[in-house]
């Protein structure tokens, strides 16, 4: 059995932005995602945020809210915290925008600024820079809705001793026009902070575990998907 303590939760969904200890009304709602500005995410000016593509803003916002919720936003020295995200469409929307700058004039007007965001893992780099995170980082994709896969990968990393702490979750914009829809997914970003051992000053939502058959449990009770996991964490935190 692999397990970890959930110490932070952050999200951006069609219902709004939030973090676990500030809002209890999490829902993976259908509908349009909020257009994120710097002020929605950071109190202070951030010269990078405004330059990012919408996918990176979404992912970075989810990670920021999760780290803030866990009390890990501030830092003095770089920290070996890892990052794992799952996505169905990744930065396909940005890819399309970028290539639209290539088509006219034989590519002479291609945008270097947009090109830098045509990798689905770029926002993990943005988070690493913003929060001094030097752990491993990757974006994973499958042909089906990711479910709890990124959390399972994080549990593995923790069990292998690669990191003591990871931020893991899901991030997706709506399917770009013309691209086949991946069943089951809802646009938004939901990230959780998972820690191998209980930090002294950290409040814990509960223990997430995965058995050998790939089934997930929160505080010993089965959990089926990300929305249910977060909702139950928030209920558990109210009880605490």
């Amino acid at each position, binding site marked *: 059995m692999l397990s970890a303590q959930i110490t932070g939760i952050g999200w951006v969904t069609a219902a709004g932005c939030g973090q676990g200890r500030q809002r209890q009304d999490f829902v993976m709602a259908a509908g349009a995602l909020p257009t994120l500005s710097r002020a929605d995410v950071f109190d202070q000016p951030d010269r990078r945020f405004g330059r990012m593509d919408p996918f990176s803003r979404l992912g970075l916002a989810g990670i920021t809210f999760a780290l803030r919720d866990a009390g890990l936003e501030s830092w003095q020295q*770089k920290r*070996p915290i890892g*990052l794992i995200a799952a*996505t*169905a*469409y*990744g930065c*396909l929307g940005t*890819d*399309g925008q*970028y*290539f*639209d700058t*290539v*088509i006219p*004039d*034989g*590519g*002479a007007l*291609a*945008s*270097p600024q947009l*090109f*830098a965001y*045509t*990798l*689905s*893992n*770029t926002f*993990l*780099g*943005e988070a*690493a*820079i913003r*929060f*001094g*995170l*030097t*752990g*491993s*980082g*990757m*974006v*994973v*994709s*499958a*042909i*089906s809705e990711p479910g709890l*896969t990124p959390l399972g990968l994080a549990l*593995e990393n923790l*069990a*292998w001793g*690669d990191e003591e702490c990871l931020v893991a979750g899901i991030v997706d914009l709506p399917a770009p026009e*013309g*691209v*086949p829809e*991946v069943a089951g997914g809802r646009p938004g970003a939901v990230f959780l902070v998972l820690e191998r051992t209980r930090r002294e000053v950290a409040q814990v939502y509960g223990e997430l575990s995965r058995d050998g058959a790939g089934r997930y449990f929160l505080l010993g009770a089965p959990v089926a998907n990300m929305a249910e996991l977060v909702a139950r964490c928030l209920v558990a935190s109210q009880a605490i």
Partner: protein
Amino acid sequence: MRRVCVVDTGVVTAFGDGLTPLWDGLLAGRSAIAPIGRFDTDRYQSRLAACVPNLVAGPGESLIVPLLERLLAGLGPVPADCKVLTATTKGGIDNLEKLRRGQPCQLETVLPGDLPGRVAARLHLTDAGLNINAACASSTLAVARGAAQIAAGQAEVVLVVGLDLVSEFVLSGFSALQALSVGASRPFDRQRSGLTLGEGGAALLLMSEERACRDGRPVLGTVLGWGSANDANHITAPARDGCGLVDAVERALAKAGLAAEAVAAVSAHGTGTIYNDAMELTAFERIFGGRRLPVNSIKGALGHSLGAAGAIEVVLGLQSLAEQVLPPTVGLEEPEELGRGLVAATSQGFLGDCLLSTNSGFGGVNAALLLGRGATC
């Protein structure tokens, strides 16, 4: 920790299909970099790339499909209980180009998660698979993850497939960033001026030692250790002090239970950009001190195949260990100061059982693998 063996490989590069033309081409110091005929390059910084010969797609099909087919055709039997990890940065990006140009195409190949399902279906595997994107370290991380799963007893067999295409999308982007070399790239050379794109792929079948022996598979080599770390410094440029790469290599050494002295040779990322190569040499200086050991880059011959580079370099690293020779760094004329006594324009022999393979990429990603020589069960 269970030993992780590589029991089969497949590789397709600009030198053709299979290891033999690749190995022979590299040892001969040849370059497969040539003018691009696939799309118009008039407005770009470079007109060169290393493209896979005779790669042809059907109507509306992405070139990633025939590339994958040729890659898998080079593999022997794959057990049905095999897990699948693919690694690509842009997959079927040529079809996204068609979509934006209003041309008909099969759009499922543009989805980042299309590739693992395609591999699983082609090989009749039950695992749905997962694609890993960590920029130019994608397949390095995929090998690391597969090895970790086997070492921890969470899998017995993992197939890692890394592949990427030369596309106008990517060429135009690196051109816009002024990151391309006008001529063929010259890794670790004092006059280097940028990278040259390449394409291809490699497949690696990883098995636990027990399973390899039980199934009577040859052990081509082992994955001894792995590590990755982020620079947390810049999105498109490496940390000049090589901090992330040093961290990744130290993690790999710790995982393998080895000291840096155990490394006999290094297959470096060596893109040919000014900052990447300088960063790597700085990192190697920090890791190995003044020790002079053979270091090479294959990207002056094969170009930079992005997410596929790490997997291709593992195939070559295992061959280097088997033959005890590191192929030349093609394009090298006068090594960078810190590279003297490390990199060479000719093949370098070595004696040892451990080779370090490293890759770095956008987003500050660094990854390292320690490869061991093959052995019989």
